């Protein structure tokens, strides 16, 4: 799993049937210093996250399908948690701003 920040929401009327009703959010993965890391991903939201939230995302098909709850579906990323706090003990960059 990765920690990321929800940076936007995506509206797509025409999509795969299994994705009907699913909420799609843009998530920017973060490094331990809370800086953007890599490309932003589009993830199914299963925990009612919103823009600005720090979240836990899975980037694996099976896990994302479980989060979506539609059986076998064409999804490969999902938000599975909202991060309340993240503590980095003994690492540079301590202080997550949580």
């Amino acid at each position, binding site marked *: 799993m990765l920690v990321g920040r929800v940076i936007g929401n995506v509206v*797509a009327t025409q*999509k795969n049937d299994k994705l009907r009703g699913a909420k799609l959010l*843009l998530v920017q993965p973060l490094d331990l210093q809370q800086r953007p890391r890599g490309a932003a991903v589009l*993830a199914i939201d299963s925990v009612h996250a919103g823009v600005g939230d720090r979240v836990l995302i899975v980037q694996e098909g099976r896990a994302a399908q479980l989060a979506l709850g539609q059986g076998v579906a064409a999804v*490969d990323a999902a938000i599975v948690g909202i991060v309340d706090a993240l503590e980095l003990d003994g690492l540079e960059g301590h202080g997550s701003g949580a």
Partner: protein
Amino acid sequence: MWLARVVGTVVATRKDPGLAGTKLLLIQPLTPERTPHGKPIVAVDSVGCGVTEEVFFVRGREASFPFLPAEVPADAAIVGIVDHWSLG
């Protein structure tokens, strides 16, 4: 999933039988700011989109799922057409 823009079509007469009848599109992955991200890839279309449209796609094993029970040997599939997105 990832954002992309459809930038072209691919025609391949001789291909794996599992790909018969599929529409192959060339897509350019995008950042949320609409700048190209990485190299263009070929993806199978599962939603009926066309060139210049903004879409999202899945990569990996899940790319074949929209076509079940047919087994399509694809590693990227377009699964939605994006109407718009907003950055908070």
